[in-house]
Protein backbone atom coordinates (compact mmCIF):
# COMPACT_ATOMS: atom_id res chain seq x y z
CA UNK A 1 0.00 0.00 0.00
CA UNK A 2 1.33 3.47 -0.83
CA UNK A 3 2.14 5.51 2.25
CA UNK A 4 3.60 8.93 2.78
CA UNK A 5 6.58 7.36 4.56
CA UNK A 6 7.41 5.21 1.57
CA UNK A 7 7.12 8.21 -0.75
CA UNK A 8 9.51 10.27 1.36
CA UNK A 9 11.96 7.38 1.49
CA UNK A 10 11.95 6.92 -2.30
CA UNK A 11 12.33 10.66 -2.87
CA UNK A 12 15.16 10.92 -0.32
CA UNK A 13 17.10 8.05 -1.93
CA UNK A 14 16.71 9.52 -5.40
CA UNK A 15 17.62 12.97 -4.14
CA UNK A 16 20.90 11.57 -2.82
CA UNK A 17 21.45 9.83 -6.14
CA UNK A 18 20.90 13.12 -7.96
CA UNK A 19 23.40 14.87 -5.66
CA UNK A 20 25.98 12.14 -6.32
CA UNK A 21 25.48 12.50 -10.08
CA UNK A 22 25.93 16.27 -9.84
CA UNK A 23 29.07 15.79 -7.74
CA UNK A 24 30.49 13.40 -10.30
CA UNK A 25 29.71 15.85 -13.10
CA UNK A 26 31.69 18.56 -11.30
CA UNK A 27 34.61 16.21 -10.63
CA UNK A 28 35.10 14.60 -14.03
CA UNK A 29 36.54 16.27 -17.11
CA UNK A 30 39.69 17.02 -19.05
CA UNK A 31 40.82 19.54 -16.42
CA UNK A 32 41.49 17.53 -13.26
CA UNK A 33 40.06 18.91 -10.02
CA UNK A 34 40.13 17.42 -6.53
CA UNK A 35 36.93 16.93 -4.46
CA UNK A 36 38.31 19.48 -1.94
CA UNK A 37 38.56 22.07 -4.74
CA UNK A 38 34.87 21.51 -5.61
CA UNK A 39 33.92 22.09 -2.02
CA UNK A 40 36.06 25.21 -1.89
CA UNK A 41 34.68 26.54 -5.18
CA UNK A 42 31.08 26.01 -4.11
CA UNK A 43 31.81 27.91 -0.91
CA UNK A 44 33.22 30.82 -2.86
CA UNK A 45 36.90 30.05 -2.30
CA UNK A 46 39.52 27.97 -4.13
CA UNK A 47 42.05 28.97 -6.73
CA UNK A 48 41.01 30.82 -9.86
CA UNK A 49 41.43 28.19 -12.55
CA UNK A 50 39.70 25.30 -10.74
CA UNK A 51 36.76 27.36 -9.50
CA UNK A 52 36.44 28.93 -12.94
CA UNK A 53 36.08 25.49 -14.53
CA UNK A 54 33.71 24.25 -11.81
CA UNK A 55 31.47 27.29 -11.41
CA UNK A 56 31.75 28.70 -14.90
CA UNK A 57 31.54 25.57 -17.03
CA UNK A 58 30.66 22.36 -15.25
CA UNK A 59 28.07 23.52 -12.71
CA UNK A 60 25.79 25.39 -15.14
CA UNK A 61 25.99 22.54 -17.62
CA UNK A 62 25.32 19.87 -14.97
CA UNK A 63 22.37 21.87 -13.61
CA UNK A 64 20.99 22.35 -17.12
CA UNK A 65 21.29 18.61 -17.70
CA UNK A 66 19.54 17.89 -14.40
CA UNK A 67 16.73 20.35 -15.16
CA UNK A 68 16.16 19.01 -18.66
CA UNK A 69 16.25 15.37 -17.61
CA UNK A 70 13.77 16.16 -14.85
CA UNK A 71 11.52 18.14 -17.19
CA UNK A 72 11.47 15.38 -19.79
CA UNK A 73 10.79 12.62 -17.26
CA UNK A 74 8.02 14.66 -15.62
CA UNK A 75 6.48 15.49 -19.00
CA UNK A 76 6.69 11.84 -20.03
CA UNK A 77 5.01 10.64 -16.85
CA UNK A 78 2.23 13.21 -17.32
CA UNK A 79 1.73 12.33 -20.99
CA UNK A 80 1.49 8.64 -20.10
CA UNK A 81 -1.32 9.39 -17.67
CA UNK A 82 -2.99 11.87 -20.01
CA UNK A 83 -3.07 9.41 -22.89
CA UNK A 84 -3.45 6.38 -20.60
CA UNK A 85 -0.66 4.77 -22.52
CA UNK A 86 2.64 3.63 -21.01
CA UNK A 87 4.27 4.09 -24.42
CA UNK A 88 3.57 7.83 -24.63
CA UNK A 89 6.53 10.19 -24.37
CA UNK A 90 6.89 14.00 -24.18
CA UNK A 91 7.41 14.22 -27.95
CA UNK A 92 4.43 12.16 -29.04
CA UNK A 93 2.16 15.21 -29.40
CA UNK A 94 4.50 17.20 -31.59
CA UNK A 95 5.93 19.69 -29.08
CA UNK A 96 9.52 18.75 -29.86
CA UNK A 97 8.78 18.75 -33.59
CA UNK A 98 7.59 22.34 -33.34
CA UNK A 99 10.68 23.27 -31.32
CA UNK A 100 12.94 21.60 -33.89
CA UNK A 101 11.37 23.58 -36.72
CA UNK A 102 11.88 26.84 -34.80
CA UNK A 103 15.46 26.05 -33.79
CA UNK A 104 16.55 24.79 -37.21
CA UNK A 105 15.10 27.86 -38.91
CA UNK A 106 17.18 30.00 -36.56
CA UNK A 107 20.28 27.94 -37.38
CA UNK A 108 19.56 28.07 -41.10
CA UNK A 109 19.67 31.87 -41.02
CA UNK A 110 22.64 31.89 -38.64
CA UNK A 111 20.72 33.71 -35.91
CA UNK A 112 22.37 34.18 -32.49
CA UNK A 113 21.87 31.72 -29.62
CA UNK A 114 19.18 33.78 -27.92
CA UNK A 115 17.05 33.79 -31.06
CA UNK A 116 17.69 30.08 -31.49
CA UNK A 117 16.25 29.48 -28.01
CA UNK A 118 13.35 31.84 -28.66
CA UNK A 119 12.66 30.12 -31.97
CA UNK A 120 12.63 26.69 -30.35
CA UNK A 121 10.32 27.84 -27.59
CA UNK A 122 7.99 29.61 -30.00
CA UNK A 123 7.90 26.51 -32.20
CA UNK A 124 7.10 24.27 -29.24
CA UNK A 125 4.32 26.54 -28.02
CA UNK A 126 2.97 26.89 -31.55
CA UNK A 127 2.75 23.12 -31.95
CA UNK A 128 1.11 22.79 -28.55
CA UNK A 129 -1.57 25.40 -29.32
CA UNK A 130 -2.17 23.92 -32.75
CA UNK A 131 -2.69 20.40 -31.37
CA UNK A 132 -4.81 21.76 -28.54
CA UNK A 133 -7.02 23.79 -30.85
CA UNK A 134 -7.47 21.03 -33.41
CA UNK A 135 -8.03 18.27 -30.87
CA UNK A 136 -10.69 20.32 -29.11
CA UNK A 137 -12.36 21.08 -32.42
CA UNK A 138 -15.67 19.35 -31.75
CA UNK A 139 -15.42 19.72 -27.98
CA UNK A 140 -15.05 16.00 -27.38
CA UNK A 141 -11.34 15.96 -26.64
CA UNK A 142 -10.94 12.23 -26.53
CA UNK A 143 -7.56 10.61 -26.00
CA UNK A 144 -7.63 9.09 -29.48
CA UNK A 145 -8.36 12.42 -31.12
CA UNK A 146 -5.64 14.16 -29.13
CA UNK A 147 -3.13 11.43 -29.92
CA UNK A 148 -3.96 11.40 -33.64
CA UNK A 149 -3.78 15.19 -33.91
CA UNK A 150 -0.45 15.23 -32.08
CA UNK A 151 1.04 12.46 -34.16
CA UNK A 152 0.01 14.18 -37.38
CA UNK A 153 1.42 17.54 -36.28
CA UNK A 154 4.64 15.76 -35.27
CA UNK A 155 4.81 14.12 -38.69
CA UNK A 156 4.29 17.49 -40.37
CA UNK A 157 7.09 19.02 -38.29
CA UNK A 158 9.29 16.05 -39.19
CA UNK A 159 8.79 16.80 -42.85
CA UNK A 160 9.69 20.49 -42.37
CA UNK A 161 12.80 19.45 -40.41
CA UNK A 162 13.84 17.12 -43.24
CA UNK A 163 13.27 19.95 -45.70
CA UNK A 164 15.48 22.35 -43.73
CA UNK A 165 18.19 19.71 -43.37
CA UNK A 166 18.19 19.06 -47.09
CA UNK A 167 18.57 22.70 -48.06
CA UNK A 168 20.93 23.70 -45.21
CA UNK A 169 24.55 24.49 -46.12
CA UNK A 170 27.21 21.91 -45.12
CA UNK A 171 28.74 23.93 -42.28
CA UNK A 172 25.48 24.29 -40.30
CA UNK A 173 24.40 20.69 -40.84
CA UNK A 174 26.48 19.22 -38.02
CA UNK A 175 25.10 21.70 -35.49
CA UNK A 176 21.57 20.93 -36.62
CA UNK A 177 22.08 17.19 -36.29
CA UNK A 178 23.52 17.61 -32.81
CA UNK A 179 20.55 19.77 -31.82
CA UNK A 180 18.14 17.14 -33.11
CA UNK A 181 19.89 14.42 -31.11
CA UNK A 182 20.03 16.57 -28.02
CA UNK A 183 23.14 18.44 -27.02
CA UNK A 184 23.96 20.39 -23.88
CA UNK A 185 26.76 22.54 -25.28
CA UNK A 186 24.10 25.06 -26.39
CA UNK A 187 22.72 25.39 -22.88
CA UNK A 188 23.32 28.99 -21.89
CA UNK A 189 21.91 29.18 -18.37
CA UNK A 190 20.19 26.47 -16.31
CA UNK A 191 17.94 28.80 -14.34
CA UNK A 192 14.86 29.12 -16.57
CA UNK A 193 14.69 25.33 -16.92
CA UNK A 194 15.21 24.79 -13.18
CA UNK A 195 12.50 27.31 -12.30
CA UNK A 196 10.00 25.79 -14.74
CA UNK A 197 10.85 22.32 -13.41
CA UNK A 198 10.25 23.36 -9.81
CA UNK A 199 7.03 25.19 -10.62
CA UNK A 200 5.56 22.37 -12.72
CA UNK A 201 6.46 19.68 -10.19
CA UNK A 202 4.90 21.72 -7.38
CA UNK A 203 1.80 22.28 -9.52
CA UNK A 204 1.33 18.55 -10.15
CA UNK A 205 1.75 17.38 -6.55
CA UNK A 206 -1.68 18.48 -5.27
CA UNK A 207 -3.25 16.83 -8.35
CA UNK A 208 -1.35 13.57 -8.00
CA UNK A 209 -4.17 11.48 -6.52
CA UNK A 210 -6.63 12.85 -9.09
CA UNK A 211 -4.11 11.76 -11.72
CA UNK A 212 -4.13 8.26 -10.20
CA UNK A 213 -7.86 8.15 -10.85
CA UNK A 214 -7.48 9.52 -14.37
CA UNK A 215 -4.91 6.81 -15.13
CA UNK A 216 -7.64 4.28 -14.42
CA UNK A 217 -9.96 5.77 -17.00
CA UNK A 218 -12.08 8.85 -17.58
CA UNK A 219 -15.38 7.36 -16.47
CA UNK A 220 -13.95 5.82 -13.31
CA UNK A 221 -12.28 9.11 -12.46
CA UNK A 222 -15.51 11.04 -13.04
CA UNK A 223 -17.54 8.57 -11.02
CA UNK A 224 -15.07 9.15 -8.18
CA UNK A 225 -15.54 12.90 -8.27
CA UNK A 226 -12.60 14.05 -10.42
CA UNK A 227 -13.27 16.93 -12.84
CA UNK A 228 -11.57 15.15 -15.70
CA UNK A 229 -12.00 17.76 -18.44
CA UNK A 230 -10.31 20.51 -16.43
CA UNK A 231 -7.59 18.18 -15.15
CA UNK A 232 -6.77 16.93 -18.65
CA UNK A 233 -6.40 20.45 -19.93
CA UNK A 234 -4.10 21.36 -17.06
CA UNK A 235 -1.96 18.25 -17.46
CA UNK A 236 -1.63 18.88 -21.17
CA UNK A 237 -0.44 22.44 -20.62
CA UNK A 238 2.00 21.45 -17.86
CA UNK A 239 3.49 18.55 -19.84
CA UNK A 240 3.83 20.71 -22.96
CA UNK A 241 5.43 23.52 -21.02
CA UNK A 242 7.98 21.10 -19.48
CA UNK A 243 8.77 19.63 -22.88
CA UNK A 244 9.07 23.04 -24.53
CA UNK A 245 11.46 24.26 -21.83
CA UNK A 246 13.59 21.12 -22.07
CA UNK A 247 13.94 21.10 -25.85
CA UNK A 248 14.60 24.83 -25.85
CA UNK A 249 17.53 24.30 -23.49
CA UNK A 250 19.09 21.15 -24.92
CA UNK A 251 17.38 20.11 -28.15
CA UNK A 252 15.35 16.96 -28.38
CA UNK A 253 17.09 14.50 -26.08
CA UNK A 254 15.36 11.22 -26.70
CA UNK A 255 14.54 8.30 -24.46
CA UNK A 256 14.57 10.03 -21.05
CA UNK A 257 10.90 10.98 -21.23
CA UNK A 258 9.76 7.52 -22.30
CA UNK A 259 11.98 5.27 -20.27
CA UNK A 260 12.52 7.04 -16.97
CA UNK A 261 8.82 7.12 -15.96
CA UNK A 262 8.50 3.53 -17.08
CA UNK A 263 11.60 2.48 -15.19
CA UNK A 264 10.50 4.27 -12.04
CA UNK A 265 7.05 2.70 -12.40
CA UNK A 266 8.59 -0.77 -12.50
CA UNK A 267 10.53 0.03 -9.34
CA UNK A 268 8.01 1.94 -7.19
CA UNK A 269 4.59 1.38 -8.76
CA UNK A 270 2.20 3.71 -10.54
CA UNK A 271 1.10 5.95 -7.68
CA UNK A 272 1.61 9.42 -9.17
CA UNK A 273 2.24 10.88 -5.72
CA UNK A 274 5.49 8.88 -5.66
CA UNK A 275 6.05 8.47 -9.39
CA UNK A 276 6.07 12.16 -10.39
CA UNK A 277 8.76 13.40 -7.96
CA UNK A 278 10.72 10.15 -8.28
CA UNK A 279 10.73 10.25 -12.08
CA UNK A 280 11.76 13.91 -12.01
CA UNK A 281 14.79 13.19 -9.81
CA UNK A 282 15.73 10.02 -11.68
CA UNK A 283 15.42 11.72 -15.07
CA UNK A 284 17.60 14.59 -13.88
CA UNK A 285 20.25 12.23 -12.51
CA UNK A 286 20.24 10.10 -15.68
CA UNK A 287 20.79 13.09 -17.93
CA UNK A 288 23.57 14.46 -15.71
CA UNK A 289 25.39 11.10 -15.87
CA UNK A 290 24.78 10.79 -19.61
CA UNK A 291 26.06 14.31 -20.29
CA UNK A 292 29.14 13.77 -18.13
CA UNK A 293 29.93 10.67 -20.18
CA UNK A 294 29.10 12.48 -23.42
CA UNK A 295 31.77 15.09 -22.80
CA UNK A 296 34.42 12.72 -21.38
CA UNK A 297 34.41 9.29 -23.09
CA UNK A 298 36.12 10.44 -26.29
CA UNK A 299 37.32 13.84 -25.04
CA UNK A 300 38.13 16.35 -26.37
CA UNK A 301 35.44 15.42 -28.84
CA UNK A 302 31.87 15.54 -27.50
CA UNK A 303 29.04 13.13 -28.22
CA UNK A 304 25.39 14.21 -28.46
CA UNK A 305 23.90 13.43 -25.06
CA UNK A 306 20.80 11.87 -26.62
CA UNK A 307 22.95 9.01 -27.92
CA UNK A 308 24.24 8.35 -24.42
CA UNK A 309 20.80 8.43 -22.78
CA UNK A 310 19.70 5.69 -25.14
CA UNK A 311 22.89 3.66 -24.68
CA UNK A 312 22.53 3.88 -20.88
CA UNK A 313 18.78 3.51 -20.73
CA UNK A 314 18.22 0.56 -23.03
CA UNK A 315 20.20 -2.07 -21.07
CA UNK A 316 18.97 -0.72 -17.73
CA UNK A 317 15.40 -0.92 -18.94
CA UNK A 318 15.76 -4.42 -20.37
CA UNK A 319 17.34 -5.60 -17.12
CA UNK A 320 14.46 -4.24 -15.03
CA UNK A 321 11.92 -5.71 -17.40
CA UNK A 322 13.49 -9.17 -17.24
CA UNK A 323 13.62 -9.00 -13.45
CA UNK A 324 9.84 -8.57 -13.21
CA UNK A 325 7.88 -11.69 -12.34
CA UNK A 326 6.04 -13.13 -15.31
CA UNK A 327 2.61 -11.65 -15.91
CA UNK A 328 3.27 -8.64 -13.70
CA UNK A 329 4.50 -6.43 -16.53
CA UNK A 330 2.70 -3.43 -17.91
CA UNK A 331 0.23 -3.69 -20.74
CA UNK A 332 -2.71 -6.02 -21.06
CA UNK A 333 -1.81 -9.58 -20.15
Amino acid at each position, binding site marked *: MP*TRRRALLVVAVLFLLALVSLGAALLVGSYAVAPSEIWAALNGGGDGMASGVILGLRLPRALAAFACGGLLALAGALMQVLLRNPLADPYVLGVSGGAAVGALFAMLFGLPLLLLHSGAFAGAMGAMLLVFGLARGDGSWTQTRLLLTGVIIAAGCGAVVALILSIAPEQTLRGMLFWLMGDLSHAATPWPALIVLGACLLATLPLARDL*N*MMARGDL*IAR*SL*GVSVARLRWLVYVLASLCTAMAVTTTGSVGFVGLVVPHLVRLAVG*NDQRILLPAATLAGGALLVVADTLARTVIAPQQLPVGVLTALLGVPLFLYLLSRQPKG*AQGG*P*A
Partner: protein
Amino acid sequence: MSVLACRGLTVNIGGRDVVRNMDFTLSAGERLAILGRNGAGKTTLLHTLAGVRAPAAGVISICGTALAEQSAPQLARQRGLLLQQQNDAFPASVLETALVGRHPWLDRWSWESAADARLARQALAAVNLDGLEQRDVHTLSGGERQRLAIATLLTQAPQLALLDEPLAHLDLNHQVAVLNLLSRQAREAGLAVVMALHDINLALRHADRALLLFGDGGIEEGPVAEVMRSDTLSRLYGHPLREIADGEQRYFVPG
Protein backbone atom coordinates in the same frame (compact mmCIF):
# COMPACT_ATOMS: atom_id res chain seq x y z
CA MET B 1 -36.14 10.09 2.26
CA SER B 2 -35.57 8.85 -1.25
CA VAL B 3 -32.00 8.01 -2.21
CA LEU B 4 -32.67 8.45 -5.91
CA ALA B 5 -35.44 10.53 -7.46
CA CYS B 6 -36.14 11.48 -11.07
CA ARG B 7 -38.64 14.05 -12.24
CA GLY B 8 -39.62 14.31 -15.89
CA LEU B 9 -36.47 12.49 -16.89
CA THR B 10 -35.82 12.10 -20.60
CA VAL B 11 -32.66 10.38 -21.72
CA ASN B 12 -31.74 9.89 -25.34
CA ILE B 13 -28.87 8.54 -27.33
CA GLY B 14 -28.30 8.80 -31.04
CA GLY B 15 -31.61 10.61 -31.57
CA ARG B 16 -33.61 7.85 -29.87
CA ASP B 17 -35.31 8.09 -26.48
CA VAL B 18 -34.25 5.62 -23.79
CA VAL B 19 -36.80 6.88 -21.28
CA ARG B 20 -39.28 9.68 -21.83
CA ASN B 21 -40.60 11.94 -19.10
CA MET B 22 -40.00 9.36 -16.36
CA ASP B 23 -40.93 10.02 -12.71
CA PHE B 24 -39.51 7.63 -10.24
CA THR B 25 -38.09 7.32 -6.71
CA LEU B 26 -35.99 4.70 -4.98
CA SER B 27 -35.71 4.46 -1.20
CA ALA B 28 -32.88 3.22 0.98
CA GLY B 29 -32.59 -0.57 0.95
CA GLU B 30 -34.56 -1.00 -2.29
CA ARG B 31 -33.18 -3.04 -5.17
CA LEU B 32 -34.15 -2.17 -8.73
CA ALA B 33 -33.34 -4.32 -11.76
CA ILE B 34 -33.11 -2.66 -15.17
CA LEU B 35 -34.02 -5.07 -17.95
CA GLY B 36 -33.97 -4.60 -21.68
CA ARG B 37 -32.55 -5.84 -24.93
CA ASN B 38 -29.01 -5.08 -26.09
CA GLY B 39 -28.89 -1.44 -27.08
CA ALA B 40 -32.08 -0.53 -25.22
CA GLY B 41 -30.10 2.07 -23.24
CA LYS B 42 -29.44 0.39 -19.88
CA THR B 43 -25.87 1.69 -19.71
CA THR B 44 -26.85 5.14 -20.94
CA LEU B 45 -29.55 5.38 -18.30
CA LEU B 46 -27.18 4.24 -15.53
CA HIS B 47 -24.53 6.78 -16.58
CA THR B 48 -27.16 9.51 -16.62
CA LEU B 49 -28.41 8.56 -13.16
CA ALA B 50 -24.79 8.61 -11.95
CA GLY B 51 -24.35 12.15 -13.26
CA VAL B 52 -21.53 11.35 -15.69
CA ARG B 53 -23.82 12.04 -18.67
CA ALA B 54 -26.33 14.84 -19.05
CA PRO B 55 -30.04 14.02 -19.45
CA ALA B 56 -32.02 15.54 -22.32
CA ALA B 57 -34.56 16.86 -19.84
CA GLY B 58 -35.63 16.45 -16.25
CA VAL B 59 -34.08 16.55 -12.80
CA ILE B 60 -32.23 13.76 -11.01
CA SER B 61 -31.76 14.03 -7.26
CA ILE B 62 -29.51 11.84 -5.18
CA CYS B 63 -29.96 11.82 -1.41
CA GLY B 64 -32.38 14.72 -1.71
CA THR B 65 -30.17 17.11 -3.68
CA ALA B 66 -30.31 17.72 -7.42
CA LEU B 67 -27.19 16.61 -9.28
CA ALA B 68 -26.56 20.12 -10.59
CA GLU B 69 -26.35 21.43 -7.03
CA GLN B 70 -23.77 18.90 -5.83
CA SER B 71 -20.02 19.09 -6.11
CA ALA B 72 -18.39 16.15 -7.87
CA PRO B 73 -16.65 14.82 -4.74
CA GLN B 74 -19.82 15.18 -2.66
CA LEU B 75 -21.73 13.21 -5.27
CA ALA B 76 -19.00 10.56 -5.33
CA ARG B 77 -19.48 9.98 -1.61
CA GLN B 78 -23.18 9.26 -2.17
CA ARG B 79 -23.33 7.12 -5.27
CA GLY B 80 -21.02 4.55 -6.79
CA LEU B 81 -20.98 3.41 -10.41
CA LEU B 82 -19.81 -0.03 -11.50
CA LEU B 83 -18.77 0.15 -15.13
CA GLN B 84 -19.56 -2.58 -17.60
CA GLN B 85 -15.91 -3.03 -18.52
CA GLN B 86 -12.79 -2.88 -16.41
CA ASN B 87 -9.79 -1.66 -18.34
CA ASP B 88 -6.40 -1.27 -16.67
CA ALA B 89 -3.78 0.60 -18.68
CA PHE B 90 -1.15 0.44 -15.94
CA PRO B 91 -0.10 -2.23 -13.46
CA ALA B 92 -1.52 -1.89 -9.94
CA SER B 93 -2.02 -4.19 -6.98
CA VAL B 94 -5.43 -5.54 -6.02
CA LEU B 95 -5.35 -3.65 -2.71
CA GLU B 96 -4.41 -0.36 -4.42
CA THR B 97 -7.27 -0.85 -6.86
CA ALA B 98 -9.80 -1.42 -4.09
CA LEU B 99 -8.45 1.67 -2.28
CA VAL B 100 -9.37 3.80 -5.30
CA GLY B 101 -12.84 3.81 -3.76
CA ARG B 102 -11.57 5.96 -0.89
CA HIS B 103 -10.59 8.83 -3.21
CA PRO B 104 -13.72 10.96 -2.70
CA TRP B 105 -13.40 10.59 1.08
CA LEU B 106 -9.82 11.85 1.33
CA ASP B 107 -8.58 15.44 1.51
CA ARG B 108 -6.27 16.65 -1.21
CA TRP B 109 -3.13 16.02 0.81
CA SER B 110 -4.26 12.96 2.75
CA TRP B 111 -2.97 9.48 2.11
CA GLU B 112 -4.99 6.33 2.62
CA SER B 113 -5.01 5.50 6.33
CA ALA B 114 -4.98 2.16 8.12
CA ALA B 115 -8.75 2.53 8.51
CA ASP B 116 -9.12 2.94 4.73
CA ALA B 117 -7.00 -0.15 4.18
CA ARG B 118 -9.18 -2.05 6.65
CA LEU B 119 -12.29 -1.08 4.69
CA ALA B 120 -10.66 -2.19 1.45
CA ARG B 121 -9.59 -5.54 2.94
CA GLN B 122 -13.10 -6.13 4.27
CA ALA B 123 -14.53 -5.41 0.84
CA LEU B 124 -12.04 -7.77 -0.79
CA ALA B 125 -12.95 -10.47 1.71
CA ALA B 126 -16.65 -9.89 1.00
CA VAL B 127 -16.11 -10.78 -2.66
CA ASN B 128 -13.78 -13.66 -1.84
CA LEU B 129 -10.58 -11.97 -2.97
CA ASP B 130 -8.79 -12.04 0.39
CA GLY B 131 -5.25 -13.31 0.01
CA LEU B 132 -4.86 -11.70 -3.42
CA GLU B 133 -4.16 -8.18 -2.07
CA GLN B 134 -0.66 -7.94 -3.55
CA ARG B 135 -1.45 -9.51 -6.93
CA ASP B 136 -1.18 -7.33 -10.04
CA VAL B 137 -4.58 -6.62 -11.60
CA HIS B 138 -3.23 -7.79 -14.95
CA THR B 139 -2.85 -11.31 -13.58
CA LEU B 140 -6.49 -11.62 -12.49
CA SER B 141 -9.07 -13.59 -14.43
CA GLY B 142 -12.07 -11.79 -15.88
CA GLY B 143 -14.30 -12.91 -13.04
CA GLU B 144 -11.76 -11.95 -10.39
CA ARG B 145 -11.33 -8.53 -11.97
CA GLN B 146 -15.10 -8.06 -11.95
CA ARG B 147 -15.30 -8.96 -8.25
CA LEU B 148 -12.44 -6.52 -7.59
CA ALA B 149 -14.48 -3.77 -9.25
CA ILE B 150 -17.38 -4.63 -6.94
CA ALA B 151 -14.98 -4.51 -3.96
CA THR B 152 -13.82 -1.05 -5.10
CA LEU B 153 -17.44 0.08 -5.12
CA LEU B 154 -18.01 -1.33 -1.62
CA THR B 155 -14.86 0.48 -0.44
CA GLN B 156 -16.37 3.68 -1.80
CA ALA B 157 -19.25 3.05 0.63
CA PRO B 158 -21.99 4.90 -1.27
CA GLN B 159 -25.67 5.00 -0.33
CA LEU B 160 -26.67 4.32 -3.93
CA ALA B 161 -24.97 1.65 -6.05
CA LEU B 162 -25.49 1.89 -9.81
CA LEU B 163 -24.29 -1.38 -11.29
CA ASP B 164 -23.87 -2.02 -15.00
CA GLU B 165 -23.99 -5.79 -15.41
CA PRO B 166 -22.56 -6.70 -12.02
CA LEU B 167 -22.66 -10.40 -12.94
CA ALA B 168 -20.54 -10.10 -16.11
CA HIS B 169 -17.80 -12.76 -16.30
CA LEU B 170 -18.94 -14.40 -13.05
CA ASP B 171 -19.50 -18.12 -12.49
CA LEU B 172 -22.91 -19.21 -11.27
CA ASN B 173 -21.77 -19.48 -7.64
CA HIS B 174 -20.22 -16.01 -7.73
CA GLN B 175 -23.28 -14.56 -9.45
CA VAL B 176 -25.44 -15.71 -6.56
CA ALA B 177 -22.80 -14.69 -4.01
CA VAL B 178 -22.60 -11.15 -5.42
CA LEU B 179 -26.39 -10.78 -5.49
CA ASN B 180 -26.61 -12.10 -1.92
CA LEU B 181 -23.92 -9.64 -0.89
CA LEU B 182 -25.81 -6.73 -2.47
CA SER B 183 -29.06 -7.88 -0.86
CA ARG B 184 -27.37 -8.07 2.53
CA GLN B 185 -25.95 -4.56 2.06
CA ALA B 186 -29.42 -3.34 1.12
CA ARG B 187 -31.04 -5.01 4.13
CA GLU B 188 -28.44 -4.20 6.75
CA ALA B 189 -26.85 -0.93 5.56
CA GLY B 190 -29.76 0.50 3.60
CA LEU B 191 -27.83 0.48 0.32
CA ALA B 192 -30.09 1.35 -2.60
CA VAL B 193 -29.21 -0.81 -5.60
CA VAL B 194 -29.88 -0.19 -9.28
CA MET B 195 -28.53 -2.93 -11.52
CA ALA B 196 -28.71 -3.71 -15.21
CA LEU B 197 -29.18 -7.47 -15.41
CA HIS B 198 -29.48 -10.02 -18.18
CA ASP B 199 -30.75 -12.96 -16.17
CA ILE B 200 -34.50 -12.59 -15.65
CA ASN B 201 -34.73 -15.33 -13.04
CA LEU B 202 -31.95 -13.86 -10.90
CA ALA B 203 -33.60 -10.45 -11.23
CA LEU B 204 -36.87 -11.99 -10.09
CA ARG B 205 -35.26 -13.38 -6.93
CA HIS B 206 -32.86 -10.58 -6.04
CA ALA B 207 -34.70 -7.38 -6.94
CA ASP B 208 -37.67 -5.70 -5.32
CA ARG B 209 -38.60 -3.68 -8.37
CA ALA B 210 -37.97 -3.86 -12.08
CA LEU B 211 -37.66 -1.23 -14.80
CA LEU B 212 -38.26 -2.58 -18.28
CA LEU B 213 -36.78 -0.51 -21.11
CA PHE B 214 -38.51 -1.24 -24.38
CA GLY B 215 -35.93 0.69 -26.38
CA ASP B 216 -38.38 3.21 -27.89
CA GLY B 217 -38.74 5.43 -24.84
CA GLY B 218 -41.50 3.25 -23.44
CA ILE B 219 -41.00 1.78 -19.98
CA GLU B 220 -42.77 -0.30 -17.42
CA GLU B 221 -41.77 0.09 -13.80
CA GLY B 222 -43.02 -1.41 -10.55
CA PRO B 223 -42.66 -4.31 -8.10
CA VAL B 224 -41.21 -7.39 -9.79
CA ALA B 225 -44.35 -9.40 -9.10
CA GLU B 226 -46.38 -6.90 -11.12
CA VAL B 227 -44.17 -5.94 -14.05
CA MET B 228 -42.28 -9.17 -14.64
CA ARG B 229 -44.95 -11.25 -16.40
CA SER B 230 -44.63 -13.54 -19.36
CA ASP B 231 -46.46 -11.10 -21.65
CA THR B 232 -44.37 -8.02 -20.73
CA LEU B 233 -41.11 -9.95 -20.80
CA SER B 234 -41.97 -11.62 -24.12
CA ARG B 235 -42.59 -8.17 -25.56
CA LEU B 236 -39.41 -6.82 -23.93
CA TYR B 237 -37.11 -9.40 -25.46
CA GLY B 238 -39.09 -10.03 -28.64
CA HIS B 239 -39.14 -13.71 -27.84
CA PRO B 240 -41.93 -15.80 -26.28
CA LEU B 241 -41.33 -16.67 -22.60
CA ARG B 242 -43.21 -19.20 -20.51
CA GLU B 243 -43.76 -18.88 -16.79
CA ILE B 244 -43.19 -21.94 -14.58
CA ALA B 245 -44.15 -21.96 -10.90
CA ASP B 246 -42.33 -23.98 -8.26
CA GLY B 247 -44.33 -23.33 -5.11
CA GLU B 248 -43.85 -19.62 -4.32
CA GLN B 249 -41.01 -19.12 -6.78
CA ARG B 250 -41.70 -18.26 -10.40
CA TYR B 251 -39.35 -18.94 -13.31
CA PHE B 252 -39.30 -17.83 -16.91
CA VAL B 253 -37.98 -20.06 -19.64
CA PRO B 254 -37.68 -19.23 -23.35
CA GLY B 255 -40.63 -20.73 -25.22
